[in-house]
């Protein structure tokens, strides 16, 4: 017996109403119970605590001024800026690394391909947090600045972090380096871990996108008399790029989400600051709301940008 469309529709409408009602009741019950739980602990919901003094310090401030007397709200802003800094540096370097490694995995040199493949496999098969722990432990066992290790000219590694030769070549004066840019061990470890891990994942995207271009395209371009470099630049890369943009974007979003691992090594990103806030003020619910809001805004923002991009590509008739 095939049920008639009409009976389907009534059953569907009834089901929908029930599901909607159940969802609303569940959410209401959850909110109500949370409020009850908070009341028992003597906490009232509200964002007023953002204006209270923070009473905790933040080790890394990305150039902003911050003291424990400043407000909780300002502390969260410092955390957000720290997250933004790691996100920008991380995404940019991961994209570069991913493109370089992804291309090198296609070159006509078995040894080079093998080395790249081994690196990518190690990254893909071990947890990001493990790499992060390994890097921070290594940086903390570096010698003090006076005996800093110089892997490249002008670049110094010590237990105080990584010194880079911008804007000037660093010189060791007194107890520390001057003239260069100093990255804290936590920032350097987090950035390096995110770049290596996501660089490996991005390299797979790049490799896949290039391999997906039909072989005939390359052959045709070569037959037209283009040089291998011209073939890559004019035929392969433009097409591959279009296919990989959505995947690159999702990879960058997941890099930003993974930057929350900062909390495990004590880098004060937004999650870390909000967690401290929750423990200090008891306003865990509000802190969670801000945390979820920040990441949801980011993910949904990127998703809608991607939709616009896809629509444009479709309109162009690619």
């Amino acid at each position, binding site marked *: 017996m095939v049920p008639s469309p009409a009976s389907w529709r009534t059953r569907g409408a009834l089901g*929908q109403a029930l*599901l909607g009602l159940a969802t609303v009741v569940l959410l209401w019950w959850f909110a109500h119970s949370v409020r009850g739980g908070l009341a028992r602990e003597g906490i009232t919901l509200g964002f007023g605590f953002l204006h209270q003094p923070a009473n905790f310090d933040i080790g890394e401030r990305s150039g902003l001024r911050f003291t424990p007397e400043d407000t909780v709200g300002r502390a969260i802003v410092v955390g957000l800026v720290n997250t933004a800094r790691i996100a920008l540096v991380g995404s940019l370097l991961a994209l570069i690394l991913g493109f370089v490694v992804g291309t090198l995995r296609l070159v006509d040199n078995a*040894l080079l391909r093998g080395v790249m493949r081994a690196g990518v496999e190690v990254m893909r098969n071990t947890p990001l947090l493990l790499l992060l722990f390994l890097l921070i432990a*290594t940086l903390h066992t570096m010698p003090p600045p006076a005996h800093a290790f110089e892997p490249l000219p002008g670049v110094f590694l010590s237990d105080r972090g990584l010194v880079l030769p911008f804007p000037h070549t660093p010189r060791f004066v007194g107890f520390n380096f001057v003239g260069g840019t100093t990255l804290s061990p936590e920032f350097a470890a987090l950035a390096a871990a995110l770049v290596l891990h996501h660089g490996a994942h991005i390299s797979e995207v790049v490799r896949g996108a290039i391999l997906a271009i039909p072989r005939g395209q390359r052959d045709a371009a070569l037959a037209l008399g283009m040089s291998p470099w011209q073939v890559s630049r004019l035929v392969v890369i433009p097409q591959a790029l279009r296919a990989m943009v959505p995947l690159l974007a999702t990879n960058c979003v997941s890099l930003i989400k993974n930057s929350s691992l900062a909390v495990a090594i004590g880098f004060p990103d937004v999650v870390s600051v909000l967690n401290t806030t929750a423990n200090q003020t008891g306003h865990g619910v509000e802190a969670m709301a801000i945390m979820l809001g920040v990441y949801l805004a980011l993910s949904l923002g990127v998703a809608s940008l991607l939709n616009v991009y896809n629509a444009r590509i479709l309109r162009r008739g690619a």
Partner: protein
Amino acid sequence: MIVWRDRWRRLARRPVAGAAAIILAATILLPLLRWGIVDARWRGDAAGCRAPDVGACWAFIGHKLPFILFGLYPPSERWRPAMATCVLMILLAISASPRRWQRWLLVVWIAGLGLVLLLLRGGFVLPRVATQDWGGLPVTVLLTLVGLAIGFPLGIALALGRRSRNVVTRIVAASIVEGVRGVPLIAVLYFAVLVVPLALRRGLTPDKLLLAQLAVAVFASAYLAEATRAGLQLVPRGRLDAALALGLSWWQSMRLVVLPEALRIVVPSYISIAVGFFQDTSLIVVIGLFDLLNTARLAAQDPDWLGFYTEAYVFVGLLYFVGSALISRYGLWLEQQLARGRAQA
């Protein structure tokens, strides 16, 4: 041999690229081999390892292996987590082949997981061990397996919900999936330990490990739902129409025709999600639980063996590598098995 000679010839033809590759391999591989094997110390105590010119201290791993594998579990009872891990492995081995995916397997799994919980928690004649003291390998394996096992049916339900003709169902399913996928796992873990306990009644202190397990399951379900939805989209619309025309109900068509085909398509996605979760369970560090990675970190904080972090992380890194590689291999094998079954049908 011929292949290798050929490769060397090709390398010799491009001296610059060849030299670069050899230098790259030498600067990475040689120091690694020297540290890990030639200069390594396999026996003895920490003092011996701290002597100059000693590479990796594998003696440390030898001494701390039970702790790395089982964490704070009472030393006299360590056979229990060891047995529990074995039971989990046997369960996995039994259910590897699609030929055994039948109803009795579900019963075996429920019984097996019951046995694992009994071993770890205690009861009857076994002394109780609180979940705070569980740690290491069994926690990692249990969180991954149970998280995926609960997340799988939930994920399928969410995927079907997102493709439902009913607006309310679609909205509810889509908000859950996008809401969870839009935030980091760490945020979900914090939500589970900071907010969820507030909603429960007074005096009812929820178990942290249980909350983490639920958080992992919910997180997994959202990712599995997206993978499943992609598979459902790839099943031609005609299949559902044909099944309906044969007189099957919508549920029957889904269960017997559309879902089996969709699930087969997305096996590779499921496998990469499984590998990801096997690794991401390590994030429970942030809420103070002890998985394999955290016990390794603690082992290197033992005053007697302070500072052998590199050895600890390289060792558990190898365990993770082997585990992840096995899951990936299994995925390839499963794809072949399912393709073969299809060719015969």
